């Protein structure tokens, strides 16, 4: 379980343009479930995702990982909970790399290199051998039906294909939690439905999925175990699938 206790995030503290993106948010996200963060632009969904995904630290509050992130910290017991809010950057990176897989709104793929290299990229610093990595990356590309583009440069792909490559990249380190920020923002309805099918596959494998979206195809899906509605940095409603 991922537990958030009174988590706040302020930007530009002490300046005239200071604002609170996330305001005293408390909630629990179950493991093996699909959780949707729903809300309009500027409601704090993306900021909350970055805090949970160890990309940024909250200004106040605590975030606890129960039963995930094991082995990412040296000497941590298997069943121990990890409070990620107080960890130094090095450990946060370790948890981010081993526990979370990210799918970005703009895909954030590196241009100029091949599809295969893009998928392998998150695992380079782990020290895994290139042949093993390549094998795993090819399997993932096969799984998402883009293996024929393995040697192509990323900019030669269509939006839907880029999305699939970004998903394959998110899975290269076999993370327990998939975090997706507005994943269908650049996809048409057909591709959005295909994306949700892939999410169903993750759920079937027991992975936790956390999606921030204001697309009805995403937040009205039957796959969602919980929908958290946000506005102005606060949770205004939470419930199970509609």
């Amino acid at each position, binding site marked *: 379980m991922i537990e958030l206790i009174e988590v706040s995030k302020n930007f530009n503290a002490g300046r005239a343009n200071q604002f609170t993106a996330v305001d005293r948010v408390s909630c629990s996200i179950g493991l093996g479930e699909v959780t949707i963060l729903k809300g309009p632009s500027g409601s704090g969904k993306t*900021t909350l995702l970055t805090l949970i995904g160890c990309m940024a630290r909250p200004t106040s509050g605590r975030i606890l990982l129960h039963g995930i992130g094991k082995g990412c910290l040296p000497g941590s017991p298997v069943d121990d909970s990890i409070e990620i809010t107080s960890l130094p*950057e*090095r450990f946060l990176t370790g948890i981010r790399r081993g526990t979370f897989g*990210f799918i970005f709104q703009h895909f954030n793929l590196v*241009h100029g290199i091949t599809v295969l290299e893009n998928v392998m*990229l998150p695992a*380079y*610093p*782990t020290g*895994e051998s290139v042949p093993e990595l390549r094998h795993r990356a090819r399997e993932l590309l096969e799984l998402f039906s883009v293996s024929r583009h393995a040697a192509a440069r990323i900019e030669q792909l269509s939006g839907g294909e880029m999305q699939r490559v970004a998903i394959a990249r998110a899975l290269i380190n076999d993370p327990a939690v998939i975090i997706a920020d507005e994943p269908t923002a650049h996809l048409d309805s057909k591709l959005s439905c295909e994306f949700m099918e892939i999410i169903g596959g993750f759920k079937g494998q027991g992975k936790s999925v956390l999606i921030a979206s204001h697309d009805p195809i995403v937040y009205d899906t039957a796959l969602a175990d919980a929908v958290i509605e946000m506005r102005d940095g606060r949770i205004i409603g939470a419930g199970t699938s509609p």
Partner: protein
Amino acid sequence: MNRRIERHRNILDFAISSLLRRKGKNLSLLAVYAFIVFIIASIVFFTQALKREATLLLEGAPDLVVQRMVAGRHDPIPITYGDKIAAIRGVSAVSPRLWGYYYDPFTGANFTLVASDDDPPAKESIYIGSGVARIMRLTTGVHWSLRGAKGTPAVFSVQKILPGNSELVASDLIQIREDDFRALFDFPLGRATDLAVVVGNKVEVPTIAAKISRQFPDTRPILKSEMLRTYDSVFDWRGGMVLVILSVAVLSFVLFAWDKATALSAEERKEIGILKSIGWETGDVLLLKSFEGMVISLTAYLVGVSVAYLHVFFFSASLFEHALKGWSVLYPRFGLTPVIDPYQLCVLFFLTVGPYTVATIVPSWLAATVDPDAAMRS
């Protein structure tokens, strides 16, 4: 340990792939960088090799040369001085030398004339160096008229052209009989240009020089070590002059490299953000950027030094020979023996590879320390 090595290998592979993605920028940088290393390395190799040649040349030189001075100017020395110097304890041998310069107004060249008792040419014949043969278009058996001191022409037959392997020493040399030398220059009998002194115990050379100075106040003894020092200074000075002239180019390169290395493009900044967001640590990004810097600077260093080696030792430093060799119109043609000074190569390495690598890391470090969530918002 294996994972560590693999990590470095993976990041190095990605660094090379990143450099190849920006071929235009990196190849132009590499070309200018390698060119500067090539120029500096050529000068270093060339002056080192010339200094070594000069040292080898002077190994056969006498321990002391005694010249007579009149009013601070060099004047022919009485040969009788030689007998008295030979009597000084510790002196093994004294031999008078006859040599001088001959200026040819048509070619503007200065030739060195030496009268030698060792295998002298026939009467009214000369041996000439290959440089003389080249510039005067002379071959064996041809007659050459030199203008004597009294204005009368003296005709000599070219008996032999000295072998090319002695060109550094003999390029501008004309070897002549003693009596022909005296007749040509109207050089007085009983006098020599200078005296060559051989000393048995080399440690005693300064003491003997001091004794000669005391005994013959009108003379100036020149030690072999002084001649060596002069050669060293001359070649260092020439190398330094070329470097000063090229310093504008070097400075331009430094500014160019600094600009290229320190300015991260928006695309590079975005990439660093992506790498951090997908799980790269700041240290991984720095390793990547330092590998990129090292690949560029190390390649430039190796290419520059290798091309400089070929340029100096296989093509006789054709780009700089006029600045670094000789001072007359008569340039000797000779192949230099390859000499590499590890100390100078190390200095060159640290002055080129080090600063560039550091220059690439600083801006990357600044970019890599931002929170990875910046990529989420891009």
